[in-house]
């Protein structure tokens, strides 16, 4: 177990982060190169003001027409994204490991709060799954890859929850927890999880076009 644990929590973490960061830079630069080649004219109306206006608008719960039409989805989606990003970064166990390796540490969430946030992520994943299965509009645009992506995102949190409570086989689950986190990191740049990178750019583009060209709201 020592060797396996040291491998997944050492070299594999490095590899996952290198692919994650390298992949993100690659995707962003190839996008910029593509724009430069094919749609240079968008530079003529890209606007910081309208871009930021759109990003802020779409990052505020219930600030857009579409969010008001789907209140439950809005609440779930905001809760999901906030907890998904904050919990792993400010988790006591994660910060402790970083501190041991690099002598770097920062504020951590109280354990009880982190527990609730993990449960929010898991519950939201269940919600998204059920929504895909029962909502006809969503069902129509769903393929197998959507379920795989959902599983990739849910896995680190489900295993993390089990590991926190030390239910079932602790050692195996901890290894699976680390592995599933690494799979998710690697998947971000190369799957639709890349909306983590592209969503702000899409919003900035839409905001600029609606604000500066059409003189209309984009929300």
């Amino acid at each position, binding site marked *: 177990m*020592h060797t396996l*644990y040291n491998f997944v929590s050492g070299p594999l973490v490095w590899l996952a982060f290198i692919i994650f960061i390298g992949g993100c830079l690659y995707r962003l630069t190839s996008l910029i190169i593509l724009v430069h080649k094919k749609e240079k004219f968008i530079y003529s109306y890209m606007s910081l003001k309208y871009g930021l206006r759109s990003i802020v608008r779409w990052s505020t719960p219930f600030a857009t027409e579409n969010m008001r039409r789907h209140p439950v989805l809005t609440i779930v989606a905001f809760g999901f994204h906030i907890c998904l990003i904050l919990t792993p970064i400010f988790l*006591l166990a994660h910060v402790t490991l970083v501190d*041991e390796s690099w002598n770097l540490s920062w504020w951590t969430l109280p*354990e009880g709060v982190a527990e609730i946030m993990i449960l929010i992520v898991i519950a939201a994943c269940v919600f998204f799954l059920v929504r895909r299965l029962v909502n006809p509009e969503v069902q129509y645009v769903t393929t197998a890859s959507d379920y795989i992506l959902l599983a990739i995102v849910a896995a680190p949190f489900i295993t993390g929850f089990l*590991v926190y409570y*030390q239910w079932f086989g*602790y*050692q195996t689950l*901890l290894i699976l927890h680390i592995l599933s986190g690494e799979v998710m990191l690697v998947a971000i740049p190369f799957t639709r999880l890349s909306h983590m990178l592209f969503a702000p750019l899409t919003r900035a583009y839409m905001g600029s076009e609606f604000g500066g060209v059409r003189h209309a709201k984009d929300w």
Partner: protein
Amino acid sequence: MMKKGIFLLIAPLLVGILLIPAFSQEDMEVVDNGSFLKKQRPPVVFRHDEHNETAQLEDCIECHHVYEDGEKLDDESSEEQSCSECHDEKGSGNILGLKKAFHSNCKGCHLEQKKGPIMCGKCHVR
């Protein structure tokens, strides 16, 4: 009446006998975490003598060390002190914070020796 009297005499004695091992190091079950203001994880399961027997540890200063000017002293040990007397929660300069001191003392050695628990929940057992 007589029986009750005997019981009343024996009961505190029994409690006393049961309590002695609870406070003696020989049968210590968990590491004292009383110095942590915020206890976030269960205390570490640790049976002192059993551990040292398995680990074939004879030298107290392996864990109960004394440092001077960043150097570990060969001939001084600190069994009489509690860890938190030097290692406060935050740590300062060369002195590790209490949590880090515990982690590096236990897990650090386990990693070096390639023996003993190194996963969080293997020591902080719920």
